[in-house]
């Protein structure tokens, strides 16, 4: 049951991944694993760049991180 839930969450998130270079949402998941188990591989159709995406990133609490990380955006 827990596995099923995790799988669904990953699929949901992975459909909305934005390119870290051009921020386009026109991306496709190429592989469920990248250089490590924690990464999935994506391709951006807008800037035509492959990139690795850190799984579960959206669920990690931001409040724990230094505030300067969001100041340059």
């Amino acid at each position, binding site marked *: 049951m827990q596995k099923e839930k995790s799988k669904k969450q990953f699929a949901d998130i992975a459909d909305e991944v934005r390119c870290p*270079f051009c921020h386009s949402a026109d991306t496709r998941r190429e592989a469920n694993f990248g*250089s490590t188990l924690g990464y999935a591989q994506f391709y951006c159709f807008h800037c035509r760049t492959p990139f690795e995406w850190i799984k579960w990133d959206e669920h990690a609490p931001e409040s*724990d991180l*230094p505030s*300067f*990380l969001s100041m*340059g*955006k």
Partner: protein
Amino acid sequence: MSTQSFASAKNLPPDCRDAVHALLLAIADTKMFLGFHYGEWTFGTPALEAGIAACCMSQDEFGHLRLLHGCLTAQFGDSPSALLEKRALNEFANVACLDRPLVNWADFVAINLFADGALTVILTGLQKSAFVPVANFVDKMVEEEKHHLRNAQGWFRTLATYNSKTKAALEEASRWALSPTLEWLGPDNHAMMQTLERYGIINAPWETLRQRFLDWVGAFAHEQKISIGLEQKNGQWTPAFPLDFSQWQPSVRRCTSTQPDEKILYHLRGSKNAIFKLGEHN
């Protein structure tokens, strides 16, 4: 601050070009040594999960290094051998606490928090940079650095509260790492950093970026009841120890004649494996 952007290094004014080159080289050098230490400690960590994290962070740092060296080669004409093999030891511009092998796990946590943290503050300063080649990749680096800082904060908390021995070791390591990190960040009012801000290469004055680092580590260490040599004055964290920048050299971001350990460079250059390079005639 300028609103123009520079598609390549050729478009940069000469003074700005030199400043960008020096900053990118200093970031690349620091990432190279961080990557080395993280990798070295993959099999020396006190927990299996910490070893996996160290390995991942090492891969991240060398991945970032590849991007930075690629940029230095494509934009500034630096050859790969000039970036690593043909430089004298006293030409490396890494944070000086990375010059030597780490003594214990507390040292690892300290470089993870201080050296990697300072580097990340500067990377956030390069987001939306007017220098387009850097602006194109820096967001990705910051995304990955978030996890490095999460790791550093987690282990810092653990060592701060586990027992009196781990707390003392953490305090000693923090004081050892903080001073060279501040030396690497350099003085607030140096012409090189003012040039970077004037042309929009960095998105905030250097003193603002430096203060963000101090306020973050100052408040965080204070929360964990770890004394790292910072004190709070008028709401801002400042060093409680003297920092003399009169001899500071912008090319290596050091005040003194420190330099990396030759043995570490020997490993990074792959010297001991030179005879195994396949396809090369020795």
